[in-house]
């Protein structure tokens, strides 16, 4: 039995031991076991990322709107091409390939797509797909690579792609108004709004 009084030499030993135990308790190492912690965060983070910037939102909704104006098959080919090329742009960013003027490219995408919607320009698929695919690379390069530490890259990517696809779907849904004469005017007005928004972001990117 230990005695803890000043006259006993066990006291300093106990005190030292207590300090050592305290230090040891504060010394946790990485535990790789257990549940997939942070993975849901990865998905939600990816899901919320495309809707965190208005420049992305307007451009992605514009892709759906323009697709709806162009009708079949562009209505679904454009929203299929965009996520794949956006992912390609993200991959370019991840492997370290620089892309000059990313923010300018994003803003220009809104200007161009808005103008195309405003003018109700009916381009053939062989022209409309490359336009959308070209701008998608800028969007992917800028935002596909922003994974927060500790989150699952696969789920982040999944959330990012799903969110982008849903923005296109929103654009297509709004584009359904194109069936009615007054709806066509509304869509063209939406194109004007997208273009103005793009011009604002372009001005900010260049200033």
């Amino acid at each position: 039995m230990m005695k803890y009084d000043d006259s006993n030499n066990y006291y300093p030993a106990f005190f030292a031991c207590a300090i050592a135990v305290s230090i040891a308790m504060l010394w946790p190492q990485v535990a790789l076991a257990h549940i997939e912690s942070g993975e849901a965060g990865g998905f939600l983070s990816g899901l919320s990322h495309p809707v965190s910037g208005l420049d992305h939102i307007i451009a992605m909704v514009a892709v759906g709107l323009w697709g709806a104006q162009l009708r079949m098959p562009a209505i679904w080919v454009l929203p299929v091409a965009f996520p794949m090329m956006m992912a390609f742009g993200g991959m370019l960013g991840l492997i370290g390939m620089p892309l000059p003027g990313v923010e300018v490219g994003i803003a220009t995408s809104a200007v161009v797509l808005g103008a195309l919607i405003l003018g109700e320009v009916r381009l053939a698929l062989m022209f409309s797909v490359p336009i959308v695919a070209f701008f998608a690379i800028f969007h992917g390069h800028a935002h596909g690579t922003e994974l927060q530490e500790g989150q699952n890259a696969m789920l982040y990517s999944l959330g990012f792609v799903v969110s982008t696809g849903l923005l296109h779907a929103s654009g297509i849904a709004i584009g359904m108004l194109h069936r009615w004469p007054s709806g066509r005017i509304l869509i063209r007005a939406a194109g004007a709004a997208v273009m103005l928004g793009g011009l604002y972001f372009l001005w900010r990117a260049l200033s």
Partner: protein
Amino acid sequence: MNSRAWSIRLFAVLALVPTVAHAHLVNSGLGPFYDGMLHLLLSPGDLLGLLAAALLAGLRGPRASRLTVLVMPAAWLLFGLIGLNLSASLQLAGLSVLSFVILGALVALDPKRLPEWAVAALAGSFGALHGLLNGSALAAIGAGVVSLLGIVATVFVLALIVASLVVPLQRAWMRIAVRVAGSWVTAVGILMMGWLSQGTA
């Protein structure tokens, strides 16, 4: 205090220092079979490829679906058993991602001329690769055949459900929705390739 007493105390202190824990396989609390099932359901890479294979089979019709639903789990089981006997855990993340990029792209393209047997062969190849990966991973953590059976049973059920949901789709927009899902799978895979090149994934 003598040196023996110090040694005992030092040992007691060191025993409290936590070390890195490399264990795994999600614990369902219901035994190894359900742990295996849960493992698959919580592995997005495996799920995306499985989903793409089943979507492709569904788009190509009932015969392709029947073949896929049989061939993919069988390959998964067979190569899983081979993987269980491997001495080291395989690291083929790039190949795994590439497999679902290809399957997703095929869903997006909806190739009408792709024969049914080719769809089943692609799904079987995907099952073989992931069976091998799962088997070697299970062996590395000391899990056994029962967990593998849980994984394979889930593969069978999911493939069956997804393919049977897609086969009856006749309306154009429904088939387009399936193709869009395939393009999303491919897009995720392309991004994953970037992450893998960074060593983040």
